[in-house]
């Protein structure tokens, strides 16, 4: 999911300092249908205080949002959450979106799925299923997901996805507890006949940020994993296997930040369970007023809302970004990361070596060398723990 996807989004080429709010179309609409989830991954990117946002859009409200998105040019629709299968009306949402002409993606842990539902979803027009795994073996998977049965269920569902002829993406969030088994992870994906594999190095938002000490791998772990992935790529290609291994770059070990979401409000639009429209799935944490789809039309949200215009152009930038010749490449990096680590979302992403706060990232890397793996230190993503972070 970190992969916002399409190679075809034309990036605007802004001049040196520009308040130009120009933007493309929201090609990617991510519908976070619910924050409910039977699992409790300690790396979950959902907000810590999700229990504060209990309300969910109705079926009709979602369909209405999908149609408005389609009219704005959106073509990819992701059903995510929380666990989207918790929504009893998922099949209606799939059917509606399919009729509108979307390519529909179900992003699921596989828990709550069965072959019967899968077949019904296909009839309704579901195009693709992405199944996430916590690990390549049952014990680590159980430890991370908080469910003993989840692993077997995932295996069964992944096989069924392929048996029914769906394209399948398998997603593994990697971190210090599972990354040393990357060989086994890749082999499992090959056995399951995945079309795409996302080896998604954990991104530190939401629960993952809370658990960063127990998650962040060491540099040696990462380099080893990347090397093994490259060896498998070469080997699989030589065998004529079309499987694609996508290794999502671990930004804590970079010297330049990622070009967040291909630019703020350029191609990506997320709607949260309670209807907040966001330019990226973690932006909810920022001190910015974001519009709600129950109150404002999607067109107005995308084209003119202050929330979506906030980081368009580059007039908002401070030094070192303002005079940096790379600002059109990474847009100053991730504002959420700047906010979480420095308290000021207008700062350069501390991942950048030019940032005066880069030492925070370096210190996290140093701590990773000293940490002893101890699952007891995880704060798991569940309703009870979320109440601790909730305001109400």
């Amino acid at each position, binding site marked *: 999911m970190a992969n916002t996807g399409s190679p075809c989004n034309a990036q605007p080429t802004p001049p040196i300092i520009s308040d130009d709010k120009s933007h493309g179309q929201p090609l990617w609409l991510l519908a976070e249908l619910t924050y409910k989830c039977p699992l409790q991954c300690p790396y979950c990117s959902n907000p810590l205080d999700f229990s504060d946002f209990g309300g969910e859009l109705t079926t009709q409200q979602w369909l209405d949002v999908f149609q408005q998105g389609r009219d704005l040019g959106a073509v990819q629709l992701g059903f995510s959450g929380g666990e989207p299968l918790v929504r009893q009306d998922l099949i209606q949402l799939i059917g509606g979106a399919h009729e509108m002409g979307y390519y529909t993606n179900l992003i699921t842990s596989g828990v709550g799925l069965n072959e019967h539902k899968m077949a019904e979803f296909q009839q309704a027009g579901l*195009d693709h299923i992405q199944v996430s795994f916590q690990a390549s073996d049952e014990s680590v998977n159980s430890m991370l997901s908080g469910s003993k049965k989840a692993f077997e269920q995932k295996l069964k569902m992944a096989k069924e996805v392929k048996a029914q002829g769906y394209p399948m993406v398998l997603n593994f969030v990697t971190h210090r507890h599972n990354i040393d088994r990357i060989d086994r992870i890749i082999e499992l994906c090959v056995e399951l006949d995945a079309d795409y594999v996302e080896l998604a190095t954990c991104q530190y938002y939401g629960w993952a940020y809370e658990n960063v000490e127990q998650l962040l791998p060491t540099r040696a772990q990462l380099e080893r994993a990347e090397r093994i992935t490259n060896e498998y790529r070469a080997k699989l290609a030589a065998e004529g296997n079309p499987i694609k291994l996508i290794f999502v770059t671990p930004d804590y070990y970079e010297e330049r930040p990622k070009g967040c979401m291909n630019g703020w409000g350029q191609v990506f639009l997320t709607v949260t369970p309670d209807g907040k429209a966001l330019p990226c799935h973690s932006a909810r944490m920022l001190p910015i007023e974001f519009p709600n789809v129950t109150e404002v039309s999607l067109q107005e949200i995308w084209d003119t809302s202050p929330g979506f215009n906030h980081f368009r152009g580059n007039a908002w930038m401070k030094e070192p970004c303002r005079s940096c010749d790379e600002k059109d490449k990474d847009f100053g990096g991730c504002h959420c990361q700047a906010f979480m680590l420095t308290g000021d979302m207008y700062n350069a992403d501390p991942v950048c070596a030019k940032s005066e706060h880069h030492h925070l990232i370096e210190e996290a890397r140093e701590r990773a060398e000293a940490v002893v793996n101890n699952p007891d230190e995880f704060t798991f993503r569940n309703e009870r723990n979320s109440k601790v972070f909730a305001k109400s």
Partner: protein
Amino acid sequence: MSDIEITAASVPVLNKMFRFQWEKAQNCFVLLYPEGMIQLNGPAGEILGLVDGERSVAAITSELEAKFPDAGDLSGDIIEFLGEAHGQHWITL
């Protein structure tokens, strides 16, 4: 795999992984796949639009030559494009 030989009798099939459709917002034909989209140029869109698992390369060629009478002999271009499409796993033969 991409060095497969394509002849007039070959029958290309769109890989199940991809969905082909016209996108008004993009003003072009596109191939959609999990979480992604490929925008096709005019000729690529015309050719893939006729790939249905039934038409042979010969049939596709004659239909397009009838549709674009000024374009002359298209068979070379079509075979070349289908070779690339096969290399990208967009089609099987």
